[in-house]
């Protein structure tokens, strides 16, 4: 790249725009666009991989990765931290410096405040960035209007811990501070939400902690769904074998309101449940930036995309990957986001160069811990059939029902994390 990014950002940070004029009123251009530029928004499981793979496939395309934080904390494995199985979040944390050094990705730490699909411009807290194509991997935001009383202040009292970081640390601290004999309450939203088996793995890890440290305590799981949404048989067996009398699982209990002052949650105005620690996982939709850009579909929640290119069906030139998009049979998981990012990257490169696109082939692999030494998995291979992403028949599925592979899978899960985070950060 001919542009000196560092001095440029310094310039912009000092309040001087690209044209040398003070940034008053509207944002100035942060970096002039060369021949070919893709902007990627979001430095998580999807965005990092899209940025890296576009650069791996075509060095003539400038890639600007915009992320508001200077690091990323993985949601996968954060339940193990909550349950005290891992000591800190360091093994779950990545930085972006090597994506810049190894692949020439231009990383900009800034908050995206708007997208102009017609003008192909992203507005950030540091200035505007023009693009030829935009890849959006914004993750999720919460449908707070469906959870009365759950505002920013309530989140500090009843953490969601569904975006890993300070919220994860807060929930663990609360759990540690709880007296033996206290009850934790956890709420699960109706599917679809980020990471289908995540709430049940969290229940397992919390129960593991309670069994060891607070044997008189219980975990009450209030699940809006009629049954466990993923790996159901395996979780049920795991709970029966390990956490009988600790996990009180209550299906079809949709929490619609919280009262942080009373440490109470309300189930559709009919029933209230008290907790000493309350973990509210609210209903979700695509990240706010995708909603604001008009990318969500008729459901007003998730972003419909072309199953080959992951280009939005609502706005041309914008691709949506990860939890925010509707990817047919692919679940909202970290590995799906990784796989979608590569499919998207390959086809973005093709489209940028006027070449033929390539049909998708994807994978999801997802491990959930039941105890500190046992994990179960679900896996699938995905392909396109009649314009839809489907799981390839007669393949994939969950771990053996008898837990015969559970100890081995707990070991594999650790390498899963190591490899996927290394892919994202090097």
């Amino acid at each position, binding site marked *: 790249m001919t542009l000196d990014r560092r001095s440029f950002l310094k310039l912009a940070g000092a309040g001087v725009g690209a044209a040398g004029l003070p940034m008053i009123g509207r944002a100035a251009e942060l970096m002039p666009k060369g021949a070919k530029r893709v902007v990627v928004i979001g430095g998580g499981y999807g965005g990092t991989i899209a940025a*890296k*793979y576009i650069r*791996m*496939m075509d060095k003539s395309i400038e890639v600007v990765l915009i992320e508001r934080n200077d690091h990323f904390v993985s949601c996968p494995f954060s339940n193990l931290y909550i349950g005290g199985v891992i000591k800190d979040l360091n093994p779950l944390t990545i930085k972006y410096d090597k994506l810049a050094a190894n692949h020439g990705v231009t990383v900009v730490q800034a908050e995206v405040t708007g997208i102009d699909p017609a003008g192909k411009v992203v507005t950030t807290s540091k200035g505007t960035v023009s693009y030829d194509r935009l890849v959006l991997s914004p993750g999720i935001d919460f449908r707070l209007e469906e959870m009365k009383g759950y505002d920013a202040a309530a989140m500090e009292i009843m953490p969601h811990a569904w975006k890993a970081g300070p919220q994860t640390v807060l929930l663990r601290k609360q759990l540690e501070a709880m007296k033996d004999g206290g009850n934790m309450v956890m709420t699960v939203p109706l599917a679809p939400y980020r990471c289908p088996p995540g709430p049940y793995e969290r229940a397992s890890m919390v129960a593991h902690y309670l069994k060891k440290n607070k044997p008189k305590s219980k975990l009450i799981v209030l699940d809006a769904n009629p049954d466990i949404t993923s790996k159901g048989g395996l979780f049920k067996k795991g709970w029966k074998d390990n956490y009988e009398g600790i996990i009180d699982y209550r299906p079809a209990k949709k929490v619609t309101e919280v009262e942080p002052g009373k440490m109470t949650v309300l189930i559709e105005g009919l029933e209230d449940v008290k907790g000493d620690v309350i973990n509210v996982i609210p209903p979700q939709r695509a990240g706010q930036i995708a909603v604001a850009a008009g990318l969500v579909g008729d459901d007003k929640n998730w972003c419909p995309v072309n199953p*080959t290119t992951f280009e939005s069906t609502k706005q041309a030139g914008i691709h949506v990957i990860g939890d925010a998009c509707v990817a047919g049979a692919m679940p909202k998981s970290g*590995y799906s986001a*990784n*796989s979608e990012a*590569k*499919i998207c990257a*390959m*086809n973005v490169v093709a*489209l940028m*160069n*006027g*070449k*033929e*696109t*390539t*049909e*998708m*082939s*994807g*994978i999801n*692999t997802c491990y959930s811990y039941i105890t500190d030494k046992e994990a179960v*998995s679900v*896996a*699938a*291979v995905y*392909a396109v059939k009649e*314009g839809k992403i489907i*799981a*390839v028949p*007669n*393949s*994939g*599925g969950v*771990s053996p029902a008898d837990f015969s*592979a559970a100890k*081995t*899978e707990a*070991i*594999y899960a*650790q*390498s*899963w*994390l*190591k*490899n*996927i985070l*290394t*892919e994202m950060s*090097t």
Partner: protein
Amino acid sequence: MTMKWKGWALATGVLTISAMAQAAPPSAAMLSNACAGCHGTNGGSAGPSMPSLASQSKEAIVEAMKKFKNGERPSSIMGRIAKGYSDADIATMGEFFSKQKLHATNQTVDAAKVKKGAGLQESNCGRCHIEDGREGKDDTPVMASQWLPYLHMQMELYQSGKRKMPEKMAEKVKPLSNDDIEALLHFYASVK
């Protein structure tokens, strides 16, 4: 060729939306990149229980996937995944990984074991695990720089009978002591 015309049409915007919906079937990179979440970018693994696929021969990958698919080789997750691919897909992926260069790993190994293992390799294994395990004869897998925990896990599967040793390998391994095998694994882990 039609592809060239399509490229021109896409670039100039002549092609209609419906024609654009036609995409080429999954390429080698499309198929293989999906594996990298667990096996590392281009098949170079950073996870100690996952094998690197980079620089494995096409034959080795095809053989491993065939055995995962039919259950002959024990696995937790690979059997379920292998069933999602046709024989042609697998051959394509095998070719992709065979073209990637060896993924050198930096592991803590025991120097004395490495030295002992080097001697054993030459006299016992070198006919199939050629170039100190950097290459393999026919469908013999590349051993060089694989992670020790992975090598240990596979050796346990062999010794318990859950994974069947090829006849020639069984002949060579049988007379070896556990210490000999341990030395060999340290040797392979050390090769770059």
